[in-house]
């Protein structure tokens, strides 16, 4: 995918973000994948600069995407998307490096702008999220697995579990919040 000119990207992201917050799941999915491509090189750069190794870059990418998701209310529609996304990525990268024993982690330059070419995820690299899911209740774990790994819709998951759609949505949201807490406390 060719990197978009930053103004065009900003415009597209702003529009997709507004659609996502209004409930457009398809737009949100494309946008999150785009965010992933944009933050991956920055996180990899910060990790290599601090000599952390890039074995778990994808873990930090996913933790950042989760933070972007849970903190999406902190995006102000009057402000740009890019600096907001990069600030969250920087915060999560610093946090992750500290957990890995880096004392002075201030990789400002990697997150100032989207400079490097967007990077697709390595399909072989997996994250800790499945291990962290062990901390969830069995029902919550089932719902997250069903929607992510098994690509089931909310509706199909609700039918299978004999729950209402609203109840599945609430359970999913709570499970994601719990995962963020488990990630923060993890010493991977």
């Amino acid at each position, binding site marked *: 995918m060719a990197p978009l000119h930053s103004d065009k990207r900003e415009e597209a992201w702003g529009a997709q973000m507004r659609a*996502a917050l209004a409930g457009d799941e398809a737009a949100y*999915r494309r946008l999150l994948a785009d965010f992933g491509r944009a933050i991956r090189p920055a996180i990899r750069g910060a990790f290599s600069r601090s000599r952390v190794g890039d074995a778990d870059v994808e873990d930090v990418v996913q933790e950042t995407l*989760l933070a972007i998701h849970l903190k999406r209310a902190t995006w102000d529609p009057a402000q740009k998307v890019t600096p907001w996304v990069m600030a969250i990525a920087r915060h999560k990268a610093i946090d992750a490096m500290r957990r890995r024993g880096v004392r002075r982690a201030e990789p400002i330059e990697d997150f100032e702008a989207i400079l490097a070419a967007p990077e697709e995820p390595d399909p072989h690299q997996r994250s800790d999220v499945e291990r962290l899911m062990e901390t969830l209740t069995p029902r919550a774990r089932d719902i997250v697995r069903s929607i992510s790994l098994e690509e089931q819709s909310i509706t199909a998951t609700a039918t299978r579990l004999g729950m209402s759609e609203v109840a599945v949505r609430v359970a999913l949201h709570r499970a994601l919040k719990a995962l963020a807490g488990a990630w923060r406390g993890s010493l991977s």
Partner: protein
Amino acid sequence: MNTDDFIAALSADAALKGPSLTRRLAFALALGACVSLALFLGLVGPRHDAAQAMHTVRFDLKFLDTLALIAPAFFLCLRLARPQTTPGALLGWLLAPVALLAVAVAVELATVPQEQWMAKLIGTNVWHCLTLVPLFSLPPLAALILALREGAPSYPGLTGALAGATAAGAAATFYATNCTDDSPLFVATWYPLATGAVMALGALAGRVWLRW
């Protein structure tokens, strides 16, 4: 789990409901201030000559001071609740209440005879000021910290301290209607001390509860 699968789970939770972050914080401040006001009225209430005191400059200046603290502290809090914001030059606005106090103190020193300076500075309500202002600060501080947990501050300690400054400003506004020590010498000595204590508590709360 690979990233595309994980994104599928996140995108199923796309829609964002509820009031905006700014509204949440404004509501928290209003609610906390109401609880604080009820506490104030129940415990001490305004002084008996408040109506006459309102016609004196020294009394009114206290409210100008607290307002000059609340406005920039709350504005900064709103800004710093978002991850991309850095404090930078914005912190300069917090000099407004300090500058106002400094000018008031200078005028007081120029107009009041030197032998009265210490008496005015010590006043009669030091312990009230140092205990009631922090006490009345607790409800708005707790409400603001709770609302800020929806935010994503890159500086949790500083953001908490500013929530503390906002809360102390609200508490001091109520307390100032009770306190009979209106001299800027008293106000500039004890109010900042009480505010500083609440800011330290806010910074601590921020470090504990505003990390994300």
